[in-house]
């Protein structure tokens, strides 16, 4: 038997069982409280400054400006929140989307806009075309670099091992004084052992990440247009005997979705077109491996697409195997524009 009024709304997928109007009122109330608190704080601050300084000492220095900034921020955040909530109450999904699009066009002009005006939904090519190449027109940026991950792992490892050294020092001191604590000893042993294992793992990852020489990819033109041919140039540096090296043009779909309270991202490769493949290549520091080939942009493929929760991405993927090293993979994003409409 259904109740006429539900105190707690349930979330079912993207929908909620609660009243949107009640949600809007609640949101407006929250932002209204922020405005009220901020305004009251600002008022008190001003009155305090105007009162006789003999009784109420003058607020000076950073404390006054900090209070002023916090109160002003509360007023601004609250006012904008109330305004947006009022605008969205009773507005349809399409009308809200239109407001957002217009606001984005107004605020983000030029290179900051997410999509070029004539190609809605297609990402801009600014990040890809701002690096000129040595052999060809553009040098493609690598999709991901292990440097940040390694830096974080280094900091974590240093902190962990510093604590381990302190624990070991305490244990040794206790043994010297003749009052050892078995629990602390065992804990310190486990802690230091874990730290040592982490260091070995980190050094192995560091070797894998930095051992293989850098790979770079250049392309004759950007963005790609369906059905056209482009020249690409692959360069592999380092000192390796590469067993196999393969370049593929890959299309990947990406979907970001809410699952309960979690935000999940799923990626799926939906198309792979081999571009180039070679075997048994000797790479030396003085003679890096360099290969030029033709990249045929597929004429029947979906263009690059980007929206807040969905994306279609194209990239060149370099996969290789070198003697004495684990297989490696490096990705270089590309941009495929929609083909031109047929001439009438």
């Amino acid at each position: 038997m259904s109740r006429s009024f539900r105190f707690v709304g349930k979330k079912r997928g993207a929908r909620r069982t609660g009243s949107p109007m009640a949600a809007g009122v609640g949101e407006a109330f929250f932002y209204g409280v922020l405005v009220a608190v901020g305004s009251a704080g600002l008022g008190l601050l001003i009155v305090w400054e105007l009162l006789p300084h003999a009784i109420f000492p003058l607020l000076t220095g950073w404390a006054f400006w900090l209070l002023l900034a916090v109160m002003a921020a509360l007023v601004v955040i609250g006012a904008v929140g109330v305004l947006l909530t009022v605008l969205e109450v009773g507005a349809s999904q399409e009308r809200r989307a239109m407001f957002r699009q217009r606001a984005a066009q107004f605020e983000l002009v030029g290179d900051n806009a997410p999509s070029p005006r004539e190609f809605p939904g297609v990402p801009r090519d600014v990040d890809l075309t701002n690096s000129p190449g040595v052999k060809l027109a553009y040098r493609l940026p690598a999709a991901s670099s292990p440097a940040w991950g390694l830096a974080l792992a280094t900091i974590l490892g240093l902190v962990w091992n510093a604590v381990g050294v302190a624990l070991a020092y305490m244990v040794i001191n206790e043994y010297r004084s003749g009052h050892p604590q078995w629990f602390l000893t065992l804990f310190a042993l486990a802690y230091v052992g874990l730290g040592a294992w982490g260091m070995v793992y980190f050094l192995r990852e560091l070797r894998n990440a930095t051992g293989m020489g850098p790979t770079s990819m250049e392309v004759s033109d950007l963005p790609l247009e369906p059905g056209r041919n482009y020249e690409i140039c692959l360069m592999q540096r380092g000192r390796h005997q590469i067993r196999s090296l393969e370049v593929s043009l890959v299309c990947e779909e990406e979907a970001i979705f809410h699952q309960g309270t979690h935000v999940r991202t799923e990626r799926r490769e939906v198309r792979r077109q081999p571009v180039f493949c070679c075997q048994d290549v000797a790479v030396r520091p003085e003679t890096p491996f360099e290969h030029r080939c033709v990249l045929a942009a597929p004429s029947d493929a979906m263009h690059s697409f980007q929206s807040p929760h969905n994306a279609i991405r194209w990239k060149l993927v370099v996969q290789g195997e070198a003697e004495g090293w684990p297989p490696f993979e490096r990705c270089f994003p590309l941009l495929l524009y929609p083909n031109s409409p047929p001439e009438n």
Partner: protein
Amino acid sequence: MFSSAAVSELAPGELSLPRGRGRALVMEPLISIHIRGHRPEFHPGEEIECQYQIDAVDPADIQAIEASVLWHTDGKGDVDLGIHYFERRTPRSPDDDFRQQFTLKTILPKSPRTYDGEIVKIRWCVRVRLFLRRGKELFYELPFQLAPLRVGARPKAEGPNGRHDRTSGVTDVSDVSQAQHG
């Protein structure tokens, strides 16, 4: 909408009232959308002309009508929406009858194209949303395709287990249907 007719069986578009409130029937307003110039797909730069009409509703109950040409995603990810064309009509006087036929025209953009991928899908449609008094809201949409991905453009993964086939495209570009509650 309350119909005074008391019939034993519900006709399409009619909903019964909850028990204990008599045998009166509720008829949902009808929203009809018609895209002129029948064709299986549209190309970027082409003009789309669309007629829409509201029926089976008291004119005094209509608060506003919104018509939009839009794309939305329809895959595994959360829904994203892009508005290409939008118009909102509100009665300026009590004599305004919004049950007349309205026409919208717009030039279709170059992107995004209709796409039927594995976890990302992009659909285009004409959507008409009707706002009634007392906060009630209904909409109906008519899909169309903007230079969709052709058969040759299907992604790889054509292994022995196969993949889901592409869903059939829109064949009927004119439709009248019961609206959905917004």
